[in-house]
């Protein structure tokens, strides 16, 4: 790995450790799943199915499990398809899922081009500023216009996550170098929210 790639990995990994540590210590949550590195389609399938089974065993309601499954699939596809790579072709993405009695917190992390940061910030601010009915209207608008990017994304991923979460998306950008930043998005799933 080149020294530049090492540096990118170091910054992303330190963000990952920070989130992991915060869940563990500050919020007293139990870490259910955590992964740093590449996400293959097989790993995405295995995590989604594993979490679904675990939640059903833990007694979560079917509706909650379905909402979590959808958020995981959307979030992990985002990371896989849209996560940028460093100059060595590495994605340095991550996922942390933490749980306590009242909620699940899912954080996705991936590299993002600094040049895309403003548009991402704008889109997420828009979603977070809307109430449930407005998010639904935005979903219909995007669905009607049917914009599919070249990478296969439908432009509905974050809107879908917001609809399923019924909470605001908690996101951050941390600068990595002049080209890339580390983007994280935390999605909350209430365990008693139906």
């Amino acid at each position, binding site marked *: 790995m080149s020294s530049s790639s090492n540096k990118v990995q170091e910054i992303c990994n330190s963000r990952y450790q920070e989130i992991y540590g915060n869940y563990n210590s500050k919020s007293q949550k139990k870490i259910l799943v955590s992964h740093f590195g590449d996400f293959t389609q097989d790993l995405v399938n295995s995590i989604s199915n594993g979490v679904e089974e675990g939640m059903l065993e833990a007694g979560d309601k*079917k*509706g909650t499990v*379905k909402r979590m*499954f*959808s958020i995981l*699939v*959307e979030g992990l*596809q985002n990371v896989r398809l849209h996560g940028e790579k460093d100059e060595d072709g590495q994605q340095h993405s991550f996922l942390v899922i933490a749980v306590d009695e009242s909620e699940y917190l899912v954080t996705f992390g991936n590299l993002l081009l600094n040049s895309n940061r403003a548009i991402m910030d704008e889109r997420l601010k828009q979603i977070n500023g809307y109430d449930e009915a407005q998010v639904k209207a935005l979903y*219909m608008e995007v*669905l*009607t216009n*049917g914009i*599919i990017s070249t990478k*296969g*994304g*439908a432009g*509905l*991923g974050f*809107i*879908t996550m917001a609809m*399923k979460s019924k909470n605001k998306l908690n996101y951050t950008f941390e600068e990595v170098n002049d080209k890339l930043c580390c983007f994280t998005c935390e999605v909350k799933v209430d365990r008693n929210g139906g």
Partner: protein
Amino acid sequence: MNRFPASSVLELEFDYISSSSVIAILEMLKMIEETDKSVKVIWTYEAGDDDLMNVGMNYKKLCGLEFEFNELTE
């Protein structure tokens, strides 16, 4: 373009649809509609799964095909 055989029915039943598939299926329904407006869609979903029911409702709004909703009860 050829039409489908008379009284053709498209039965769709999903446990889950990702957002990118939601758009892909809409495109497919629009293609079917362009070919033959008489095709009927039967949208089957599990009782209580309002999200999947709503996906079907959205399709009904966005394409001109006839929809029948079939709620599966256990």
